[in-house]
């Protein structure tokens, strides 16, 4: 430490700054000297050693190279996996990525909390349905319908964003939330607007045309199996949108967004049209969502009000926050991680692996490959086995149940996990609440005590997982999403790919 103090204090990181950055908690700004910050603009905490060097080299790779690589990988997916399911899920995830990119513009770049984002998605889908279905007997070809829908989306964004002109952040959240609710109510009741059937009401519109151009249609499925063409179209749209948004962010507008996000008052005083910038962010986001909506409608051949619901909004938010709001690569990664996670959590068998893999990953991530990790793992194995033995000895019905998750992992764990044959009604709530309480307790204790308490908590977690969460994967998915959202905001608000920024206090 001492030699650092002796050298030029202005060009070296201030002593303790790295620790201060790390120790202050992920959400408070770090203290730095003016000169140091001014000279280095957006300073990023860098790691040392081999990983740091690797990180450096990865950072040097241009953004478009990543994009090309990513696109190539995704294009190969349908070649490797023939099943229609993988193609359909890939398409869904590409749509999620598009939605995440759009939300990133509003939340990440504009700094606005837009709770009505999914309504723009709906506007796009219903707009496309209005222009290319039997509903009004208008059948525009896709190369006309889609641009019109994008413009409609942008106009909708303009109209909804207008109230933000006078209102502060929270009020915008309220207004957008209510726009969302109003949209749902309107669309669900739209089959009888003063006697006219506008949008099919609760039954939606089920006669939407597939993508078509110059008289030729792109078939959605072949023998029931989802066709690859739609995946490639979606991927192409994704690349175009990614590049376009990247260029916008690199331009004056992007820089203006950044400054008005950091300090709107200062930006305003510097002459930037802050309100107009907010509106632009809104419009870009809405247009992207509308574009995605049209792809969605054409693939599904129909639009229904129930798709555009609150859980979808939270899902996209989780993707953006987890990935790192403000970074396009981040939100794309977030979309993929959350999308795949949700798919695996559909099915008890797949979910089984995910849970234990994630727990293991988390342990390795926090404890590193150390003696402490080994101690915890051994402790968990021993404790779990002991409890299983004791419980089985008291009453075999306590451990003879079958876990809903199968596969080799399920079989391997039968002698370790405690799965009662007929759990009493109070077991579920008590064990679940107990788990949540003990996890929260873990965050309050430190060091040694935390490691020691980790062992019984992990055993309890596996019990709750097998008996409460696995039998009901559909509720578990959303519980996990909510937990990810909270944990990310508290422990790592910059998300996976975000970078901690240093600010002057």
């Amino acid at each position, binding site marked *: 430490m001492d030699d650092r103090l002796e050298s030029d204090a202005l060009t070296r990181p201030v002593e303790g700054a790295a620790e201060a*950055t*790390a120790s*202050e908690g992920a959400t408070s700004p770090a203290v730095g000297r003016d000169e140091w910050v001014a000279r280095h603009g957006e300073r990023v*905490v860098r*790691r040392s050693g081999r990983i740091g060097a690797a990180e450096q080299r*990865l950072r040097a790779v241009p953004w478009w190279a990543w994009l090309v690589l990513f696109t190539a990988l995704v294009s190969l997916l349908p070649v*490797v*996996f*023939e*099943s*229609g*399911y*993988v193609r*359909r*899920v890939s398409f*869904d995830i590409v749509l999620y990525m598009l939605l995440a990119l759009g939300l990133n513009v509003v939340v990440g770049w504009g700094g606005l909390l837009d709770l009505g984002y999914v309504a723009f998605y709906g506007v796009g889908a219903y707009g496309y349905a209005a222009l290319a279905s039997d509903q009004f007997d208008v059948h525009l070809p896709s190369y006309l319908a889609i641009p019109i829908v994008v413009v409609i989306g942008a106009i909708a964004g303009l109209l909804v964003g207008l109230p933000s002109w006078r209102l502060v952040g929270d009020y915008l959240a309220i207004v957008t939330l209510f726009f969302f609710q109003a949209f749902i*109510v309107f669309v*669900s*009741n739209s089959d009888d607007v003063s006697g006219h059937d506008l949008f099919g*009401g*609760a*039954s*939606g519109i*089920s006669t939407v045309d597939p993508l078509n151009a110059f008289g030729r249609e792109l078939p959605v*499925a*072949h023998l*029931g*199996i*989802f066709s690859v063409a739609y995946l490639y179209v979606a991927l192409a749209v994704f690349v175009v949108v990614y590049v376009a948004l990247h260029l916008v962010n690199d331009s004056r507008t992007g820089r203006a967004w950044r400054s008005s996000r950091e300090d709107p008052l200062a930006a305003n005083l510097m002459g930037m049209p802050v309100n107009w910038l907010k509106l632009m962010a809104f419009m870009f986001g809405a247009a992207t969502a509308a574009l995605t909506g049209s792809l969605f409608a054409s693939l*599904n051949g*129909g639009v*229904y009000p*129930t*798709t555009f*619901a609150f*859980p979808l909004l939270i899902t996209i938010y989780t993707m953006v926050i987890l990935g790192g709001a403000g970074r396009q690569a981040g939100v794309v*990664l977030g979309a993929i*991680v959350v999308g*795949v*996670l949700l*798919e*695996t959590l*559909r*099915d008890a068998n*797949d979910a089984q692996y*995910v849970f234990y*893999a*994630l727990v293991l*990953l988390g342990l390795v*991530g*926090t404890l590193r490959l150390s003696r402490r990790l080994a101690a915890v793992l051994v402790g968990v194995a021993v404790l779990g086995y002991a409890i299983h033995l004791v419980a089985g000895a008291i009453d075999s019905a306590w451990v003879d149940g079958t876990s809903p998750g199968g596969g080799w992992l399920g079989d391997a764990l039968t002698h370790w996990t405690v799965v009662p044959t007929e759990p009493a*009604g109070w077991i579920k709530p008590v064990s679940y609440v107990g788990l949540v309480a003990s996890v929260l307790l873990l965050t309050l204790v430190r060091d040694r005590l935390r490691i020691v308490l980790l062992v019984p908590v992990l055993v309890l977690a596996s019990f709750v997982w097998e008996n409460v969460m696995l039998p009901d*994967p*559909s*509720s578990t*998915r*959303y519980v996990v999403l909510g937990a990810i959202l909270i944990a990310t905001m508290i422990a790592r608000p910059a998300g*996976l*790919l975000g*970078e901690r920024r240093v600010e002057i206090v």
Partner: protein
Amino acid sequence: MRKTKSFPLFAAAVAATALAATVSATPAAAKSTRATAGISCSKTLDIGMLAPLTGAAGFLGQEQLSWAKLAAKRLGPQLGLKVQLVAGDQQLDNALAASLVQKYLADQSVMAVLGPATSGAAIATTDTLFAAKMASVNMSATNTTLTKGADKKGSPAFFRVVPDDSVQGPTDARYMVNELKAKKVVLVDVREPYTVGLANSTQATLRKLGATTIRESVSIDQSDFSSLVTKIPGDTDVVFFPTQQPAKAQTFAQQLIEQGKKAVVFSSDGAVSQDNFNVPGSYVSNFAGPVDQYKYNAPVIAAWKKDNPGDTLGPFGPPTYGAAQVALNAIKRACVKAKNGSITRNQVLQQVSKVRIKNWILGGSFRFSTKTHDPLNAKFTIFQIQKDGSYKVVN
């Protein structure tokens, strides 16, 4: 707290994603190479199920799921088959249903599908299922256009074990006018396809029979109907309120009494539940009586109660059991006829319409109509709720 470590976390996230993706995709990839070969009857066969397991209609799907699981557990061994149920949560989202259908199509051991539970999802997925020759036996989608009419939306792969709205509506309407002597009827729907379809069908018949009808709608989330009740004219005879939540029918009936209106509530099959809808004087129509009135159902009901302690018998479960029974019987028939002990989906599909079941869980015996993929001679039974809350057949 901790130092930032974006790179290892990034790598970890990518690794986890790759792992998860591989895990869920690999079984499907491995199986797809046997695309048309057929699957041996001695292996474990799967039945897919699509129902809303979370969200506003989650209670419905969960009930259906519990009975479907029971059917797989009991009937599989009875028929000499190894059967597993794979259930998917379609919520109320038809796009999700389409996605799930792809999943089951890719899984070669899925030989038939139960549902999708909602009419909208059934309409959205029926063509895909038929294109892949996968039979879908439906237990709750009652939209008439799925099997009948000039604008028939259901494909030849769609089968239904419960009668549709075009039977229930007129039956209810005729009872209201002829037996209850109703002259003024208020119909209330909750802005979703089931209730809207049923209300439309009932209103049409009521009008033909000369009754005055008033139509109201409430949002699907609403459970306090006080103001709507206030609005209902004092001389209304019947309030027709189809719903999938017995508790709401109960609340509506109670609030009518509270505000001194003489109208009685007439609800539909979704509200059948002696525990949750038991306001004396109300009516409810169902495609079957309460299943515990049939003695031969006793073991099934006992088994269900054992697996689901504390839950009450509802209207959506038993038809699901029946649908599973039909699907399993179709599979069994295909296995019996199969040349080398292996069957394809198409073979199962061909057998569905030929299935006959004695001691049908919903009463009587079951077979499909020769003209449509609906149950033959399906009728609706109308019940009046007695002073002690029990249901008495009145038609």
